[in-house]
């Protein structure tokens, strides 16, 4: 079983268990069911939960015959093999079970089988889910006790009803969050629900959820909050794990309350926000702290009860579970998309997919008689998707599929090839009939669509190809001819049908030649990485590089990505190329760093939109890091802004997954397209790259130059690092330094160089920087001075 299978399978098992045991009425049942689920999932032969030196639940032995002493000894680690009648000797694996006093859960499999590390981790997670379920259960039990009391004491009934109502609210809230986790809502949504839920239930104004920074485990990053001003959020973006109340909570793995006398532990940011009492609990995965959840109130005199602490701990535990789940979701997505590629049917429309359609066409080519093929592409579908959202876009595609099917004869094959591309195979149709049919379909598609309250109109461009005696006899080629004709229809202004002619094949051939060469280039290692140095001016050092792809074409010389990336994107070669770039860049940088452990270099790698949308990038990054041994924080992934604006929700999910691997994320070309502050604040970004456009114009004082100043100011306020691209002159450098930038890349020092020359290039740049630094500093002071007087 490969890694991704294990992780997707384990995510499923955890969510199943959560759904199964969350609301059982009896504690013994909760323990028994959780144990059963864990042991069944891992196909174990024996399992037990031991608490306080006694067996609470057991499975695998005949009733009444479980060897209590052996099980207790095994739970303590004193016995590693249990003899189970019917199964034989079983090797046991034991984990802590925090929901129970001195609790341990164990599982065994008949020898010689043993659990691997991933299965052991899953078993650990099962124990944690059991802990969560027990917490919810205790809340219920408390409720029952109160209910009994209320019957005896009419006076207190009113208060108790209130308490009961709160308990109910807690359970409902936790159930809601568990449901978000088990239905795999985006991590952001789950974390937001946690802070909102905890603040409402405890009745406080402020809640903040931080997670341990995967880059730097001594720091915490704020990932969700409520009741904090934007300013406070900025200040709390990063904090240390070892100071104040957070430090105590992390160190002692227990909640810390700051009210009354202990309020001197309150952080200044909290106090500035008017918070007078607060408490913080660690979010634990096993023994490991993965984050903290804090709440604070502005009401003077508010004391937090034990019940409040219990609520806080329950929510912190759910945060830990959500984070665990998020780590494995990327793998699940990968498994699903892999399976989708193999399937024959288009999931959205229920029509045949490309694979099945090509089989149909091949079958038709085997029969004599006339035959035509249409390639239909919707015009401006992307606008519908972007403006009305994916659900409406999907609905539109479904209806388009239905309309096409409704416009052809039974027996004609209709398929969705992908995206907004459809294809139709018309059997025994003459050329004239086929053209009439194509127009009929386009007319049907042109009728208005009523979709979820919107009225949408959309056109289509159609490429039509007739079978000829000398024409292609292979389905793929026939489809490509239709595709070429469709492109021609688009080029002629959309909303029309174009019949394929042989002359169009030349276009196709040029494109497919490039594709073939590109495929060969990958195998022949003609795609190589060049590295452009990134320089830290105050440190006078080269701190890393940006890896840039070049095609060393045997005939055309060295080609930049702009000459071939579009074809790579169209043909899905981009995935293979992207993966290779990550592997090579990490491998090269790790080798450099082996030789310079005291001053390691970072490397930046560009990630394209389609790589990010595909989602496999998470797996590729993980693979590149583990095969090269490069420290994750030495890898920066550069993403273009347009990727993020296009589908921010799914992009955010993948970015958090990437962030969780410990890599750094940079936004490339920031400010050149859709500048949006809102997404910048919501995404786990570390670096802003300032585009060359701003730098070129910097000395001119134009609007671009002013924009450059505000981009840099923005980065500083969000505590993001900046790297300025495209610096060519000293004047440009001076202006950007004055704005507060310290890291640069550009031809002023060096363009991209092959890996073999990078060490030499870096050394020469550092020599240059060391010598004229005094002079340069003086120059800068002068510039700064003149800036002031001019102003």
């Amino acid at each position, binding site marked *: 079983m490969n890694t991704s299978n294990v992780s997707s399978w384990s995510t499923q098992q955890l*969510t199943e268990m959560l759904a199964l045991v969350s609301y059982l009425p009896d504690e013994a049942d909760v323990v028994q069911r959780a144990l*059963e689920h864990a042991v069944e*999932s891992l*196909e*174990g032969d024996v399992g037990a939960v031991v608490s306080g030196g006694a067996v609470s639940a057991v*499975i695998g*032995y005949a*009733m009444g015959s479980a060897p209590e002493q052996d099980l207790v000894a095994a739970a303590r680690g004193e016995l590693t093999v249990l003899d189970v009648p019917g199964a034989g000797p079983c090797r046991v694996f034991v984990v802590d079970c925090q929901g129970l006093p001195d609790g341990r859960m164990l599982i065994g499999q008949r020898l010689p089988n043993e659990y691997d590390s991933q299965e052991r981790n899953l078993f650990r997670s099962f124990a944690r889910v059991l802990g969560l379920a027990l917490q919810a259960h205790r809340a219920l039990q408390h409720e029952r006790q109160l209910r009994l009391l209320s019957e005896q004491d009419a006076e207190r009934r009113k208060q108790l009803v209130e308490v009961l109502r709160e308990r109910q609210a807690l359970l409902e809230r936790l159930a809601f969050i568990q449901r978000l986790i088990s*239905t795999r809502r985006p991590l952001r949504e789950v974390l937001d629900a946690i802070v909102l839920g905890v603040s409402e239930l405890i009745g406080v104004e402020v809640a903040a959820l931080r997670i341990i920074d995967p880059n730097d485990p001594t720091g915490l990053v704020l990932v969700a909050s409520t009741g904090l001003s934007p300013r406070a959020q900025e200040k709390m973006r990063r904090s240390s794990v070892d100071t104040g109340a957070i430090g105590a909570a992390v160190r002692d793995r227990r909640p810390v309350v700051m009210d009354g006398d202990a309020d001197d532990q309150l952080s200044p940011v909290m106090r500035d926000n008017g918070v007078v009492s607060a408490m913080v609990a660690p979010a634990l995965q096993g023994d490991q702290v993965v984050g903290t959840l804090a709440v604070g109130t502005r009401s003077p005199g508010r004391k937090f009860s034990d019940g409040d602490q219990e609520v806080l701990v329950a929510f912190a535990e759910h945060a830990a579970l959500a984070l665990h789940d998020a780590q494995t979701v990327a793998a699940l997505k990968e498994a*699903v998309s892999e399976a989708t590629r193999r399937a024959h049917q288009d999931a959205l429309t229920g029509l045949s997919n490309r694979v099945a359609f090509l089989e149909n066409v091949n079958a038709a080519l085997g029969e004599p008689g006339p035959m035509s093929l249409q390639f239909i592409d919707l015009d401006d579908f992307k606008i519908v998707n972007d403006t009305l959202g994916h659900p409406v876009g999907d609905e539109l595609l479904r209806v388009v599929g239905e309309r096409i099917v409704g416009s052809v004869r039974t027996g004609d094959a209709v398929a969705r090839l992908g995206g907004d591309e459809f294809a139709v195979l018309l059997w025994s149709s003459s050329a004239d009939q086929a053209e009439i049919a194509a127009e009929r379909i386009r007319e049907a598609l042109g009728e208005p669509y009523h979709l979820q309250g919107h009225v949408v109109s959309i056109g289509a461009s159609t490429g039509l190809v007739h079978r000829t005696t000398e024409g292609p006899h292979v389905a793929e080629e026939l489809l490509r001819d239709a595709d070429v004709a469709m492109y021609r229809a688009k080029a002629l202004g959309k909303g029309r049908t174009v019949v394929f002619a042989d002359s169009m094949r030349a276009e196709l051939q040029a494109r497919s030649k490039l594709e073939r060469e590109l495929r060969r280039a990958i195998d022949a290692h003609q795609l190589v990485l060049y590295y452009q140095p990134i320089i830290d001016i105050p440190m006078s050092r080269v701190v890393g590089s940006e890896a840039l792809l070049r095609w060393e074409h045997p005939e055309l010389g060295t080609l930049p990505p702009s000459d071939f990336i579009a074809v790579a994107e169209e043909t899905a070669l981009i995935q293979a190329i992207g993966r290779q770039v990550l592997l090579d860049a990490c491998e090269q940088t790790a080798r450099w760093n082996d030789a310079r452990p005291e001053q390691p270099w970072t490397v930046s790698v560009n990630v394209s939109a389609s790589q990010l949308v595909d989602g496999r990038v998470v797996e590729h990054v993980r693979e590149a890091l583990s095969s090269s041994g490069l420290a994750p924080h030495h890898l920066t992934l550069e993403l273009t802004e347009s990727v993020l604006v296009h589908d921010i929700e799914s992009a955010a999910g993948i970015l958090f997954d990437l962030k969780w691997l410990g890599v750094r994320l940079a936004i490339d070309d920031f400010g050149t397209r859709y500048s949006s502050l809102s997404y910048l604040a919501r995404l786990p970004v570390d670096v802003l790259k300032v585009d060359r456009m701003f730098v070129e114009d910097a000395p001119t004082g134009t609007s671009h130059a002013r924009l450059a100043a505000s981009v840099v100011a923005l980065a500083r306020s969000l505590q993001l690092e900046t790297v300025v691209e495209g610096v060519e002159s000293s004047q440009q450098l001076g202006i950007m330094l004055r704005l507060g930038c310290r890291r640069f890349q550009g031809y002023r020092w060096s363009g991209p160089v092959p890996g073999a020359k990078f060490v030499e290039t870096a050394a020469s740049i550092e020599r240059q920087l060391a010598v004229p630094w005094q002079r340069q500093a003086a120059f800068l002071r002068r510039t700064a001075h003149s800036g002031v007087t001019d102003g």
Partner: protein
Amino acid sequence: VLAGQEACSAAVAGRADAALLVVFASDALDLSRLSKAVQDSAPDVPMIGCSTSGEIGADGATDSGVVVMALGGPGFQIATASASVEAFGLRGAGSEVARIAAQVQSSPYRVLLVLTDGLAGDQEEIVRGAYAVVGAEVPLVGGCAGDDLRMSRTSQLLDGRVMTGSVVAAAIGSDGPLGIGVKHGWRRIGEPMVVTDSDGVRVLTLDNEPALDVYLRRLDAPEIAYHDAAAFTRFALTHPFGLHRRSTEEVRMVAEADFATRSVVCIARVPRGGLAWIMEGDDASVLEATDAACDAAVEALGGAPPLGLFAFDCIARRGVLGDTGIAREVDRIAAHAGGAPVGGFYTYGEIAKNSAAGGFHNQTLVVLAVA
């Protein structure tokens, strides 16, 4: 009734040392008269049985028939019991019948033969209840009673009595080895789906869409299955769900469509949050599974020749094979039995469990070989 008596007489063949009668009979027959008649023809011999959706005998499969297997001779210890789901709950009923395993404890080889009402609720719970009592020590084997695919009421038989909504069991202790084989023979089709909402055996949504709609659309189901409950059930027989498991997929029979809520109802629980596939099979894959299950059961006898084979075969496999395929399948089972008697029936779910891994199966063949 006459058929039942005849079958019983043939099975017992005049021997006085019969230890257990196992009766599989169509409920097209008058089961209360039939079971009384069988019992009368061999009084004092414990008897269990159930209604079927087709019976399996050494010379072929039948409809509206009856098969009686008699276990006897020296070296057998037998105890029988029944429990009603209404009285004990699903899990409790499983536990209750499993207690009789203690009565055959002195035999070196043991098995608990369990026949249940598959329409009475989550069958995994019955299996868990029984497993909690016997542990890995006594394997569980058996199946869910049928009613010729009407899906309305099944019967369980014990000592001449007819019950419904019950679990009946026989603890079999033997001096000779007992072997169990399990195999399904389905394969995944299409892309996996996330079970985004379910409630016990009811699947509400797949990939956030109404489950019934997804199911019908993915399979390009015939028009009639979109509105006719019986037609849906017939269609769904050959298209079960497969749930993603550690080392395999667990098959779940899709039993019913709920046209009002656009959900589907399965024979066992389909947990929320899980990954599921739609599965399909053909003659070849189903027959391969037949061989594999029989091989495993006979091999577990350690070289001893089988005295008889019990087959618990899912009705859905019958749906895939058709009448001629069924004849071939039963021929194959008989060949593995090497001339020994074969008895079994077409079930609504199969039971085979001898480790903590799940023990309730759907659309599977379970074979018990007795030596």
